[in-house]
């Protein structure tokens, strides 16, 4: 049809190559690992770094117990991600509405983000020690709060950009229609910020998984993939620890893949 732009063939080829090459590299690593070449390269043995088939065996033999830990970690990551992103977005709206205090407020939120989880987790666990008499519940609240704090900054900073960096003249257009601030917000700023929300999530989704795993280290109640990695290394059960490490990677990859799908659906009209 007249005036239509089509995605070129070379773009599609680039897209395929960007998937195929990393997969081939992964397969190569697996072969080196299973054949023991990797152990020689890293100067280690198959006790500290078990073979892939052994790790896969452990995962399939203990799938019920692993899934309990997976759900515990995923719940922490997603609840924290949701709360942190929500609060981050509200902070961005506040910063947009009150520009005088806005940029200062965002700087403080970003400063929070620079505090390492390792330092943050014990402080938050101390705050939450009275929220419930059940150790499992108060641990859950503490872990979710850690992830909340760590997810907040990327959302508030990116959403603020999405709410304020408008295409040239788009705000003038609203003004010529005598649109009020609320109308301008709903019809222009909010939709303009949607791609920026995904930019924030690209950072905070992997961040929330890491936050969940690390906060488990310090939690009172022993559950979660991160905690299992730690517990198994402590008792020198390296094969089981590696099984949980692989599972942790899978969680990260799965959540990121889901984000990519959501992004493709929500932004398909814009690309």
């Amino acid at each position: 049809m007249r005036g239509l732009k089509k995605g070129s063939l070379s773009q599609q080829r680039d897209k395929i190559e960007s998937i195929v090459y990393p997969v081939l590299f992964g397969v190569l690593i697996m072969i080196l690992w299973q054949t023991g070449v990797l152990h020689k390269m890293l100067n280690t043995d198959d006790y500290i770094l078990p073979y892939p088939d052994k790790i896969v065996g452990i995962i399939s033999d203990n799938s019920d117990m692993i899934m309990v830990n997976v759900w515990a970690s995923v719940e922490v990551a997603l609840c924290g991600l949701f709360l942190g992103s929500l609060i981050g977005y509200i902070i961005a709206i506040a910063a947009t509405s009150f520009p005088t205090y806005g940029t200062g407020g965002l700087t403080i939120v970003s400063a929070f983000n620079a505090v390492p989880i390792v330092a943050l987790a014990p402080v938050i666990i101390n705050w939450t020690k009275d929220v419930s008499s059940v150790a499992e519940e108060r641990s859950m609240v503490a872990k979710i709060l850690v992830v909340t704090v760590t997810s907040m900054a990327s959302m508030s900073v990116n959403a603020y950009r999405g709410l304020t960096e408008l295409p040239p003249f788009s705000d003038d257009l609203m003004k010529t229609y005598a649109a009020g601030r609320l109308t301008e917000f709903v019809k222009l700023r909010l939709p303009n910020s949607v791609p920026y929300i995904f930019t924030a999530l690209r950072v905070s989704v992997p961040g929330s998984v890491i936050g969940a795993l690390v906060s488990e280290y310090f939690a009172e109640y022993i559950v979660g993939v991160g905690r299992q990695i730690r517990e198994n290394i402590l008792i020198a059960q390296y094969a089981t620890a590696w099984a949980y490490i692989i599972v942790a990677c899978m969680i990260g990859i799965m959540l990121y893949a889901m984000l990519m799908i959501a992004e493709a659906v929500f932004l398909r009209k814009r690309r």
Partner: protein
Amino acid sequence: MPDTRNNDAEILLDDVGMVYTASDGRNVQALTSVSMNIQKGEFISLLGPSGCGKTTLLRIIADLIKPTSGRVLIGGETPGQARLKRKYGMVFQSAVLYDWRTVIKNIELPLEIIGVTKEERCKRAAKMLDLVGLSEFERHYPRQLSGGMQQRVGIARALTLQPEILLMDEPFSALDEFTREKLHIDLLKIWRKTNKTIIFVTHNISESVFLSDRVCVLSPHPGRLSAVIDIDLPRPRTMELKDTAEFTALVSKVRNSFEGV
């Protein structure tokens, strides 16, 4: 000096001046003492090189900025009152389509803002799209259209609320010559059908002569109105007009009226 007491004027500019304070604290005189009358239904060009204040003047009329001196009246009202009554349609240097909305939804935007029902919105937007000859593209997204088509959607959107005045800020400057010439003819047709008052900002001399009833020549340093030239060429104007001696003579006359460029 034009008669600023003329009550028939749709747009009246009386000694309008604009002083910016630059970032280093110095005052920059963007416009000094611009006075003119624009009649209802007139096609006026504001022509000048960059830095002459032509866009500033347009934005003052549109109430996007306030002049630091002088007076502007739009049908006897202030630009602010005229804006709140939605007397203006504005077309910008780029089409300024919202990329998350389809073509038809972009045109419906102003109707949504004033609270028109969905059914009525669809009907009116479709009519506007027909006016610019893009009916078959209503479900497309802006990125799927060429630059010229996008700008036609921008024009359709500017006309949706049936404003009395159409303000156009270098609307065709980013387009290629072929597309631009086609849009000139289209714009003149739309103007004849809708009978709007059009103020058209441009830095293209032949474009301003071809389209306008009057060309207001602005010169820079400081921005000022240096000449107003009547273009008494017959209408409707066609592409052949550009080959006539009268057209060429007017282009030269406009070009020679610039000061200090």
